[in-house]
């Protein structure tokens, strides 16, 4: 399910399936996308931040189009205890690899992988990013 901002419209609440993973996409070329994500985060129930949220930064291939400061994104990841992934949408290989990663994360968050919980996986991802 794709949306441009949160909260989701309440009219369709009863039709919506359980949400296992939320990926906030930030386009490094657009300051507005960061602001939009920050505003949407405020509407999210706290329980999602136990491993069911991640940030996906796109447009990272071209440094000179950068309108968003990387420090701001790292701080966001830290503040919301969620991993930050990077992707260049225009390159097919990276796009496919990122999609596979997200699917894997979704499987874990939906509880389909025995022995690994969303929270433990999220902690694992964050610790490796810090290194």
């Amino acid at each position, binding site marked *: 399910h794709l949306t441009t901002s949160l909260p989701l419209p309440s009219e369709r609440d009863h039709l919506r399936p359980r949400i296992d993973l939320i990926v906030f996409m930030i386009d490094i*070329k657009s*300051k*507005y996308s960061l602001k939009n994500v920050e505003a949407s985060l405020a509407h999210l129930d706290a329980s999602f931040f136990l491993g069911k949220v991640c940030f996906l930064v796109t447009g990272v291939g071209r440094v*000179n*189009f950068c*309108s968003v*400061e990387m420090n701001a994104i790292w701080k966001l990841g830290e503040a919301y205890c969620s991993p930050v992934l990077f992707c260049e949408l225009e390159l097919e290989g990276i796009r496919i690899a990122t999609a596979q990663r997200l699917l894997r994360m979704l499987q874990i968050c939906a509880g389909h992988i025995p022995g690994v919980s969303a929270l433990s996986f999220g902690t694992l991802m964050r610790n490796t990013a810090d290194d």
Partner: protein
Amino acid sequence: QENADPNRTAFLLRKQWTLYSVSPLYRFHNSHLRDYARLLSAFIAAEKQKGLAVEVGVELDIKVAVSSIPDLKGSDRDQAAILVQLSLRSQASQKNSEDKLVWSGCFCCVFGDHLSENVSDDFTCLPLFLVNGAESYTSLVGTWFQKTFDCCFRRLAISPLNLCWMAAMWTGCKVDKAISAMELVFSVPSLPYPLDISYAIHPEDAKALWDTVQKTPGEITQEEVDVFMDCLYSHFHRHFKIRLSATKLVKVSTAVATAHCDGIVKFLQSKYLTGVLMLLTELAISQIQ
């Protein structure tokens, strides 16, 4: 820097300069500038012979001058700037006809310590290269320098993030007469036709806004730059319902200098020349490293 002779650096003002980053030059010696001029001149003549026409159809002689500008630097640890000038020798051998300057290239380094301290003494660090003139000459001179000193030239692009810093920094500079408006140009992405939005702000209003944002004079933080830009974006959104933060900032024009994301700048105030060059040197160094 207060005792730098403004006349020696005045040639930089009010001209459009294209920026390049240059990796350190191997075995470049300030004492051999005349020899370099001779060698470069011979190289250009040879390339012309090979048919790489510089001026189509006209037989003109190119004179090369290479000089040092000791005043153009930041600290004493910086290398003095090197200026390369190409002039067309006038055809008619009249004594009072002057050679016409057709191309200028200036290598400089303003407060570039963090590059030069990590590099051996065989190398000369002049990371910022400013060019004014035809691309064909730039390519000739660049090729000769790359072959002779084993260095690498790259066009220096300026990201929207860095342009925001320049907008904030230059707005804060005190200028005697606020002549020109501050102008920001944005390029709108994802449209089938190219669309640029120009946002002009009265310089005094811009300075007043910056003065309320900046907490410590002489110091600028990323948060202050963000607040400054956000105020400008909100103001625009209130009036035009357009979110500039979703577009790409491509050009900043102030009374101090103008800068375009393709790495094209114009210096307008000699008082702030060193400051702007220091910032550009830093950008050049981060592109090299």
